[in-house]
């Protein structure tokens, strides 16, 4: 070792070691942080592990709990997925609120609030997003939840390929539309996008294994409907919307027109699932299973490109001065949500998801009485919006 500058070298190296240890402890804590899902007093009758439907998932980071809420009377079944994209917190939180609040009297509700647990365990680099979000419950407890990344954690599957070739593995399509492809090439990082990996591969990457388990679960249990909960940037066209597979278009259309818009005054769009946009829940789970496949989107200012300073407050309140400016340009033509109020709080976003899920389930029961699911204790949309405090709906 050279003698010149030895002192400065040691100081710089010590600072680097401190930074590595400090960052490493923060990352490691997030990776291992376990959210508390409160099932005491809820209608959860049992839990299963996702690896029940793909043995290759056992003892991996993707082997999450499936919460099962069974009514006393037999009926239809629905699977609700939250946390597909972990930087879309309303999808994750809506699933948690539903599993803690829903009380089915007829039929079965399956909830997986953290379907991409790997994505919840880290943040997107250079985005400046918070690691956690917090809510205070009615009895004063503070509950902590992950704010994660759009994609799985690279330490679970590294490196990404240059190009991700999506395939359907060994699955045989049941309802493939004419002229549809079953493969697609995407940018390499999409190999870690949970919602580009369906129907999944049993012994593929971790993300593909999780997708395979979901597909196999739906087929094994003959689940009637699957609803995947998301959020999207306010400037993204598919926003405040239900994306429906062709087999679920009628249900989505009727739920929108009769329940959401006419009865509750919730403006929402229905978008058809594109035939050749492969790997997504609303596409593949409709093509490869008999379930009605649907995906819900709601605007989230904390993930958009126009946003300013990004912190927990933005994730929860949706208040962003940059989006306010954007909403005033060209009469709001830059955005696909009404941002004239200057905010888009998570209580509103979760309330929209819950109202949409309830409307879709109700509509399935109207159209297919043998698939009816009756749920009590569904949080009221107007109450949630008025209270603007999501913690009141957490146990």
């Amino acid at each position, binding site marked *: 070792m050279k003698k010149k500058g030895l002192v*400065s070298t040691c100081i710089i190296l010590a600072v680097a070691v401190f930074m590595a240890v400090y960052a490493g402890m923060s990352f*490691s804590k997030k990776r291992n942080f376990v959210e508390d899902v409160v099932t005491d007093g809820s209608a959860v009758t049992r839990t299963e592990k996702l690896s029940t439907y793909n043995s290759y998932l056992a003892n991996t980071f993707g082997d999450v709990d499936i919460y099962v809420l069974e009514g006393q009377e037999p009926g239809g079944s629905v699977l609700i997925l939250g946390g597909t994209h972990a930087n879309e917190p309303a999808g994750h939180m809506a699933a948690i609120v539903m599993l803690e609040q829903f009380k089915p009297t007829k039929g079965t509700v399956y909830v997986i609030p953290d379907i991409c647990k790997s994505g919840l365990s880290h943040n997107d680099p250079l985005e400046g997003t918070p690691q956690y979000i917090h809510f205070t419950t009615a009895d004063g407890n503070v509950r902590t939840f992950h704010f994660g990344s759009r994609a799985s954690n690279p330490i679970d599957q590294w490196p990404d390929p240059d190009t991700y070739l999506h395939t359907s593995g060994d699955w045989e399509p049941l309802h493939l539309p004419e002229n549809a492809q079953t493969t697609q090439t995407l940018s390499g990082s999409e190999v870690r996008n949970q919602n580009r990996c369906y129907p999944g591969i049993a012994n593929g990457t971790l993300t593909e294994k999780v997708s395979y388990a979901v597909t196999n679960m739906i087929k094994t249990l003959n689940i009637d409907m699957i609803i995947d909960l998301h959020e999207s940037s306010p400037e993204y066209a598919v926003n405040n919307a239900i994306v429906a597979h062709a087999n679920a278009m009628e249900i989505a259309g009727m739920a929108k027109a009769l329940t959401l818009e006419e009865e509750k005054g919730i403006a929402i769009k229905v978008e058809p699932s594109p035939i050749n946009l492969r790997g997504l829940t609303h596409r593949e789970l409709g093509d490869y299973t008999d379930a009605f496949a649907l995906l819900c989107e709601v605007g989230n200012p904390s993930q958009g490109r126009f946003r300013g300073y990004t912190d927990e407050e933005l994730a929860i309140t949706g208040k962003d001065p940059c989006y306010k400016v954007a909403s005033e340009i060209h009469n709001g033509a830059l955005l696909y949500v009404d941002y004239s109020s200057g905010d888009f709080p998570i209580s509103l976003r979760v309330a929209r998801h819950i109202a949409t899920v309830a409307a879709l389930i109700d509509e399935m029961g109207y159209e297919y009485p043998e698939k009816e699911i009756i749920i009590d204790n569904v949080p009221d949309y107007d109450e949630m919006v008025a209270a603007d405090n999501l913690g009141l709906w957490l146990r």
Partner: protein
Amino acid sequence: MSLITIVYLVIAAIVFLSVLYNLLTKEEKVVDKVACAMILVPLALRLLMIK
């Protein structure tokens, strides 16, 4: 852990050791030493599979 992950970890280890060697024996300007140190931090975390 897949074979390709192990290959990438070996590459990361070689780069880490090379940068550390440069920091300890070659670089004389403080700016260059700081640059070396900044490179070492993410490499160390990836070698330890912490993200």
